[in-house]
């Protein structure tokens, strides 16, 4: 079926060129997703989804038109092409030019032992049920939800330049959330672990211990106070480092935002923006991250250095922003699915480790806070102002160089360019994670990403709370 579809798509590319396109590409995608949700010891839902279709992009006299369809018949593909041509012509010469760069021909499939879609529904349901039951650790527990997520994403890219790249990735994981109530105070803690892998990852972990630990944390948090608002020295764990880098710095390093001047990082190449302990990387294939060897414009995604020893070295680009800056694409052109155009997106964004042990980071702090990502509620930033706000998970106060009481409802905020300068120690550990339950949103598109780093110490962090 794939071979006959491919020849149909090639014919459409030829037709696009015949209609005046100076460039055209077509992306075919087949995406399978299963989500199993268990709530309070009972299976709540078993959802299975298949999505398939093509997206056609054409450049005509400078105008870039795009159209997609889930109708894979000859007529459906023909209609999409016509719509794309119409859209390109409506734009006139307003469109965005694309950098013509490397032309790749490649086919990469993530190696897995057990295809998650060949595992019986019974086995998946029982894994989720067992993990859910294990989370009932006491009377304080009011509600528990466990989700099992499995996905397989096949993407084929072909272009009128002769590019042809196919990538298949599997991603699986387990998400759990516990609501606990202690002395009339309710608290909700959720966490997930995912990996680009086959079903073997889900079989290899003790999920019962994982969910029981989340319940323990929810009870602990419900019984704790919120920290007094103020500015503290802080030790930040890899999850919060990843979140902060991805949201507050990563987005600002995206070529499209830099080009328009929207980003605080515009015109800052070569500037010392962070303490010299800080090196920041965006990389397509890293342990624990999302598997992304090629982007949705057929460009290889390797390792891109964004910040080296505190100095801003580069931005991330798709073919459009690469054209605007007169550089090569860094392989960061990504689309949520075939229904969307690629835009500049991060892949796996992380800080390189340094040389401090965890105790060394904590011991010099007389009164501060240890910010933890587990149970985090995500964050939001203004890339133009460099402001960020994140709701981190239950955390711990630091008193006289030691971890002290747990605090909940911790919200941090600040200006990223100030925060990065106050990093005075970087840990030697490194943890990068991805998720099958969420991702990163930009311009109404969600893509899977990875982020992380080592533990770090920040001299000044503004902590809100109640």
């Amino acid at each position, binding site marked *: 079926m794939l071979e006959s579809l491919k020849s149909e798509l090639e014919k459409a590319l030829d037709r696009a060129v015949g209609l005046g396109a100076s460039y055209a590409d077509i992306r075919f995608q087949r995406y399978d997703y299963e989500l199993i949700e268990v709530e309070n010891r009972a299976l709540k839902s078993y959802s299975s989804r298949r999505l398939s279709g093509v997206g056609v992009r054409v450049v005509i006299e400078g105008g870039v038109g795009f*159209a997609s369809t889930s109708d894979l018949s000859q007529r459906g593909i023909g209609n999409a092409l016509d719509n794309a041509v119409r859209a390109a*012509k409506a734009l006139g010469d307003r469109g965005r030019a694309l950098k013509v760069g490397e032309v790749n021909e490649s086919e990469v499939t993530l190696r897995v032992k057990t295809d998650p879609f060949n595992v*019986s529904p019974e086995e998946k349901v029982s894994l989720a049920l067992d993990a859910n039951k294990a989370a009932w650790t006491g009377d304080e527990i009011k*509600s528990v939800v466990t989700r099992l997520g499995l996905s397989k994403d096949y993407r084929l890219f072909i272009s009128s330049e002769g590019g042809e790249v196919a990538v298949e990735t599997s991603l699986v994981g387990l998400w759990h959330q516990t*609501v606990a109530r202690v002395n009339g105070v309710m608290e*909700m803690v959720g966490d997930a672990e995912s990996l680009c892998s086959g079903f073997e990852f889900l079989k290899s972990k003790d999920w019962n211990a994982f969910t029981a630990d989340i319940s323990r944390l929810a009870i602990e948090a419900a019984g704790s106070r919120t920290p007094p608002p103020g500015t503290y020295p802080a030790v930040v764990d890899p999850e919060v480092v990843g979140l902060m880098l991805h949201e507050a710095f990563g987005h600002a390093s995206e070529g499209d935002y830099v080009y328009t001047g929207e980003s605080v990082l515009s015109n800052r190449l070569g500037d010392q923006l962070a303490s010299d302990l800080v090196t920041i990387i965006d990389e397509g294939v890293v342990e624990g991250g999302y598997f992304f060897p090629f982007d949705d414009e057929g460009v290889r995604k390797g390792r891109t250095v964004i910040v080296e020893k505190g100095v801003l070295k580069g931005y991330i680009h798709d073919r459009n922003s690469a054209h605007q800056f007169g550089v090569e694409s860094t392989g960061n052109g990504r689309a949520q699915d075939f229904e969307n*155009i690629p835009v500049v997106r991060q892949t796996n964004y992380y800080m390189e480790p340094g040389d401090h042990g965890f105790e060394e980071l904590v011991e010099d702090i007389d009164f501060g806070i240890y910010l933890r990502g587990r149970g985090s*509620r995500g964050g939001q930033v203004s890339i133009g102002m460099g402001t960020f706000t994140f709701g981190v998970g239950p955390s711990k106060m630091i008193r006289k160089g030691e971890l002290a009481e747990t605090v909940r409802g911790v919200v941090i905020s600040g200006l990223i360019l100030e925060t990065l300068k106050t990093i005075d120690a970087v840990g030697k550990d490194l943890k990068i994670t991805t998720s099958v339950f969420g991702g990163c949103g930009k311009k109404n598109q969600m893509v899977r990403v990875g982020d992380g780093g080592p533990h770090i110490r920040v001299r000044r962090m503004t902590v809100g709370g109640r």
Partner: protein
Amino acid sequence: MEVAELAVKRALELGATEAEAYVQRAKIIRVGGSEEIEDFNTVESLGIGLRVVLGRRIANYSTSILDEAEVEGAVAKAVKIARVSPEDPDWRRLNRRFGESQAQGYYDDSLEALDYQEVVEALESPLSLVRDYDPRVKPTRVFLTVGVTGVSIANSYGEGCERKETYVVASMRAKAKEGGLESTGSEYQQARSWREIDFEELATKASERAVKFLRARPIPGGRMPVIIRNRIFASILGVLLSGPINADWVQKGASPLSNRLGTQIASEDVHIIDDGVMEGGWGTRPFDDEGHPTQRTPVVEGGILRSFLYDNYTALKEGVESTGNAQRRGYWTTPQPSPSNLILRPGGVSFEEMVAETREGIYVEETIGEWLSNPVSGNLNATVTHGYLVKEGELTEPVKGVVISGNFYSLLKEGIELVGGDLQGSMNYYSPTVKIRQLTIAGK
């Protein structure tokens, strides 16, 4: 309708005791750019979501491939998953009450055949307005989405039903620069019809906000009165209340409002209604995603909690009528109770009066991160990106980068001092501007 009915019929033949098919068609146009228009994208999508029931075993399956063979395969797979699923002891049956409410203003047929050229020109006008507004300002992001969707629902009890809806969202972001100072301003508009979008206002508000905030800065922290702009409070209402009034949360024990029905949860002048038939509302439609007619449901009347919001499953579990709040976020998701248009009823105080009555406080015009607030504990947090210090009854210097926080439930009970008359929506949440007696400000 054919595909939906075929799927239901096939599921019953394969041994299902009940079946439901939800077919969604969407035609979406997205036009966007930064300093100028750069992208023109169109999407045509079609998909089917199936719910197959064997006794009390349920499975959901969806696919975007709608040829007969794939749909038959999908039904077979769903029946197979249902067979191995454990029983849901709370399952009763699928929705049996089909029908249409008097909802108006959710479909604009002029959006069916928009001329692409006309769309580009319409979006060109606010871009040039921003450029001409002030030499310090330029547009940095512009976005327009036009959606036409069609939904057909069939289940093993009903005749089936169909609806068509339209949506338009337009947004603009501008940036101002002067010397070393920089600031941004954004504005968006949402409507169910094309003519309701005011592109001129979009451009003016974004530009004005950007320029005014060049010299904005944080203020020292403390506790003070806070006036919150209608759309921002609407968004806060959505984040903090949509979960707790969801019958599913209540039944799970995850809602802080469980066991609070009939009790005072807010001050007497607080009235909150879920209005599925509000003319032209973002969440207005004749029937919900299970085919049940939509309605108006008083949620809070005079401060007293009157009702939660139900879909068919949660209603039958409790032995009550569905409130017509079943929602699928896409054909591939399962129905969940969700607000249609959740409205805080306006009062009569004007914005000018609110400011005039404030000796020292802050007016919050734009925030980020309010969705980080915790609906279970009621902890409210938002970072103010655009605000004004109010002094002696007047708006004074612009403020940014402070965090407002407080507890939403205490705020409902004793915190709301004044309720404005200027109702506005943030998606399907609606509120007038309100004045809060006191909130904590974490500042510089």
